[in-house]
């Protein structure tokens, strides 16, 4: 398939989907509807609500706050995850002793600990950053750790025979090798950070997309619920595309992977 065909195909799916939605909600053909728009809203209703929301500045502010929380969690998660992953991969006693605890911590369902975080850190930014961090950290940690573990032993041996010092080994082989794993984690990390922040906002917040969602659900404002969901979707797609572009640029030595 050519690139144009793919894009045209995607647009067609989108348009047909939207038209059907509009039709089902009774906003396309007057008098014919399948479901009450109170439950499913409709594309035009959402568009109107989005315009209103952005016009009075509420949605823009919320998008900004959610992005800030996610970004904070992302950055701190990357830094701490890389550090912990390198430590685990390179220092065997730590790996042996602490690995089960890492697995256990990672298995905690974040929605279950979100109320605790809000209790400890308040309803402000901090609790959301920590929740976003708690997802990003483990993703980056495991990728870095695996990256160190799976370095080609032949390369290490060749370097050792050529008398590479430990510092040279880290600089020439280990860092660049782990780098690719970290970037592979970046794309997922971006959406995980967003999820973490939004879970935090569900539980206790005064602003953010997640807060808008939960508030609108409480007030049965279906249009606003859908607006918020669509915003989250758009942000996630934009951020992951950005991460993917960055990844392809920096990891241009890899064989191209489609997806």
């Amino acid at each position, binding site marked *: 398939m050519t690139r144009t065909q793919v894009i045209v195909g995607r647009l067609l799916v989108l348009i047909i989907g939207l038209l059907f939605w509009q039709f089902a909600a009774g906003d396309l053909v007057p008098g014919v509807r399948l479901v009450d728009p109170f439950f499913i809203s409709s594309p035009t209703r959402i568009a109107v609500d989005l315009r209103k929301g952005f016009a009075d500045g509420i949605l823009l502010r919320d998008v900004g706050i959610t992005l800030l929380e996610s970004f904070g969690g992302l950055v701190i998660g990357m830094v701490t995850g890389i550090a912990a992953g390198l430590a685990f991969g390179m220092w065997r006693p730590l790996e042996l002793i602490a690995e089960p605890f890492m697995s256990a911590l990672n298995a905690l369902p974040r929605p279950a600990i979100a109320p605790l975080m809000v209790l400890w850190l308040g309803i402000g930014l901090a609790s959301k950053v920590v929740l976003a961090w708690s997802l990003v950290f483990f993703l980056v940690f495991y990728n870095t750790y695996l990256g160190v573990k799976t370095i080609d032993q032949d390369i290490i041996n060749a370097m050792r*025979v*050529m008398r590479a010092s430990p510092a040279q080994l880290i600089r020439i082989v280990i860092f660049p090798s782990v780098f690719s794993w970290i970037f592979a984690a970046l794309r997922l990390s971006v959406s995980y950070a967003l999820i973490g922040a939004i879970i935090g906002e569900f539980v206790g917040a005064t602003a953010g997309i997640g807060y808008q969602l939960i508030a609108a659900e409480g007030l049965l404002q279906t249009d606003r619920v859908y607006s918020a969901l669509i915003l989250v979707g758009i942000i996630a797609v934009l951020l992951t595309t950005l991460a993917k572009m960055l990844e392809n640029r920096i990891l241009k030595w890899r064989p191209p992977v489609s997806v």
Partner: protein
Amino acid sequence: MNGADTPAQPSSLPALIEARNFSVTFGPSRLVALKGVNLSVHAGEIVVLVGPSGCGKTTFLNSVCGLLPPGAELSGTLTVAQNVRLGYMPQRDALLPWRTVLGNVEVGPELRGLSRSQRRAKAEPLIELVGLSQFRNHYPHELSGGMRQRVSLARTLAYEPDVILMDEPFAALDAFNRTALQEEILRINDKARLTVLFITHDLSEALVLGRRVAVMSSQPGHVVEIHSVDLPEPRSATKLRGTDAFLRLFQKLWNELMAESDPTKRREA
């Protein structure tokens, strides 16, 4: 005269690697991987260790490199001359996938602590030498197996080793590329005398490249015989194979290997 160095070796140059009655035993099962190996590699010669898989060739090479697994027990002596730089070329190319051809070849000089411009100056002519100038900015995944092994060769040479250890470096290549790379080694060797310890299970490769060929057998791994290969120089991997002298030697070593691997005919040690 099991495993003894033949007096046919008149080299006056010093031995860079020398094994005397060298044995290696592995693990709790005390598996004897090498038993009483006597072998030396002198400056400016290509020594080939040939034998079937599992006869301990790689164990010997790894002993020289210092890559034996922990728990290996050694006896006898294995000396590597002081301040000898070892180059290492494994069967899999072991290139850094995130570096271009140029970047990979520069690793050799980089490990020796040379500056960026010196690295470039060392790497460029070697890339030229292995015929990859057009590909200097390509990444390993964009190259064929034969080209990657050429890069690996250039990287090894760029390190300017005193001895190059090659562990079946062409075994994974197709017949065409294998011959081409053997030709390459011979050509480079004609220009600048290389010192190589080469391991292979391919007898004809051993005879094409080796000035001395040590035939090894297994259980336990030992050197059966060391042959001097007096074939006309300069050698050519393609032409040599058809000559009578080559075929006679091939037959002789082949019989030797067969006799060793057939337990009913095994000579008394």
